[in-house]
């Protein structure tokens, strides 16, 4: 790579890789936090020291019960994300290819967009019960919209020159869809999926806050109710790691699915 891509001095040798810088900042912040908690003798009910949180989290990693709840949350997220992707891409292609239908449905899409969907969570618990179904539904609905909107945008952004090539080749509707519209929209679809997967986790966890006895969201609520702030922080760390793992997988798909696209470099 050229010298613009890394921090290099004039002679071309790298000064510090950027991740080392990020790590130093993180260590600095954690040290400041640790020092603040000890120096001002902050109650661990308010703000536990990072060292304690870390110790608690490492304890979690050896706790089968936490892994059970992790599995539940991960599965809800994955199912919700899966359904959201199928529905979002499917409907997105339909709306993208049929501008009249899109204009007709647009007010409804906007209306459902602006409704604070998290406020609907209690309703879904009423409808779908305290089990996994209600969480999967919430995860699906939250993840659905960014995937839908990006897919529509992708279909509408198909290059006119490319369309004319398919037209001059007398391609059928199906051929246009599979050979042009879909591959051309993939970068947009993946962007929608990146946003969607994060929202799917949020949906699953919020659902767990409000109903049922399983999942990491439920663990967080229980720890909060027993004033165990250290454990609450540990759950948050655990959730963040889970979220990051999902996100990394989706981002990683770019390299394999659209190596030709500029965003994969």
């Amino acid at each position, binding site marked *: 790579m050229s010298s613009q891509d890394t921090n290099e001095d004039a002679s071309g040798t790298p000064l510090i890789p950027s991740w080392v810088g990020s790590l130093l900042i993180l260590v600095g912040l954690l040290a400041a936090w640790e020092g603040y908690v000890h120096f001002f003798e902050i109650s661990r009910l308010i703000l536990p020291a990072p060292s304690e949180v870390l110790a608690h989290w490492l304890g979690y990693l050896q706790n089968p019960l936490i892994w059970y709840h992790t599995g539940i949350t991960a599965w809800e997220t994955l199912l919700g994300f899966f359904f959201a992707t199928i529905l979002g891409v499917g409907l997105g292609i339909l709306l993208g290819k049929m501008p009249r239908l899109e204009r007709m449905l647009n007010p409804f899409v906007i209306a459902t967009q602006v409704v604070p969907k998290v406020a609907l969570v209690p309703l879904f618990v009423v409808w779908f019960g305290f089990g996994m179904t209600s969480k999967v539904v919430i995860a699906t609905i939250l993840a659905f919209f960014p995937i839908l909107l990006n897919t529509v945008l992708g279909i509408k952004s198909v*290059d006119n*020159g*490319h369309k*004319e*090539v398919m*037209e*001059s*080749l*007398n*391609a*059928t509707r199906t*051929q246009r869809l599979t*050979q*042009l519209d879909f*591959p*051309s929209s*993939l970068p947009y679809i993946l962007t929608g999926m990146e946003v969607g997967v994060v929202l799917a986790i949020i949906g699953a966890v919020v659902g767990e806050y409000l109903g049922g006895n399983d999942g990491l969201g439920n663990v967080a609520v229980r720890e909060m109710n027993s004033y165990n702030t250290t454990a609450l922080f540990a759950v948050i760390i655990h959730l963040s790691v889970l979220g990051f793992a999902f996100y990394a997988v989706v981002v990683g798909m770019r390299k394999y699915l*659209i190596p*030709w*696209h500029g965003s994969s470099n």
Partner: protein
Amino acid sequence: MNVAHVTDDKSISLKATEKRFGSSKNGVQALTPTTIDIAAGGMTILLGPSGCGKTTMLRLIAGLVAPTSGIIEIGGVNLWANGRRNSEALSHLGMVFQDANLFPWLTIEQNIALPLKLRGVKKSDRLAKAQDLCKLVGIAGFERRMPNELSGGMRQRASIARALSYDPGILLMDEPFGALDAITRDTMNNELQRIWMETGKTVVLVTHSIGEAVFLADKIVLLSPRPGRVQEVIDVTFPRPRDQSVSLDPEFQRIATYLRDKLDH
């Protein structure tokens, strides 16, 4: 090869073909009713200033726009019947656009083989054909490259190969070298002449470059604007193969000067 039909599927004839855009009252007459036969196996150049209808005429022949009235016959087959394009007529046509319009997610050979894929030709056969065509258009060795790894001239060579992949009798080219630099353009004109002589296709090429027109043409169809119409058809009879030194020939200068005068009016 079916020799008996070789000239048949290469002929183009317009019969009182007219194209208007917009409503009949306020609309623009892009091409006034035009009757012309384009010689099978010849190199016909449509030349004129912007707005003269040359691109409209080519797009009419290509089936990319429907005529307002009149008939277009490709290889003796009516291109438009009952408002729909005739697929037999379309199969005689290969179209090259100003931009190469290669699909960035496909390799060069996959791009060239795309029309064959749409026709259901099996993979090994279509890739073999793509390799042959890469040799013909002078990009052998680049079969597995992605389009963005090639120069503009090479991309345009690939798009010519794509148009030739299903062996149409007619090659339609809409300012194919207009986006290239002058040096590459000269090379591409030489190459086009060679490919045309090797394949024996009917070529119809749109340009606004007088030099390009006189260098390439058997016949120059001179069009003039407002409303778009055929003004004159000029024969160019230099022996083949021509090289760029033909432009020093006094006859070349005479034709070019004549065309320049005509275009000034």
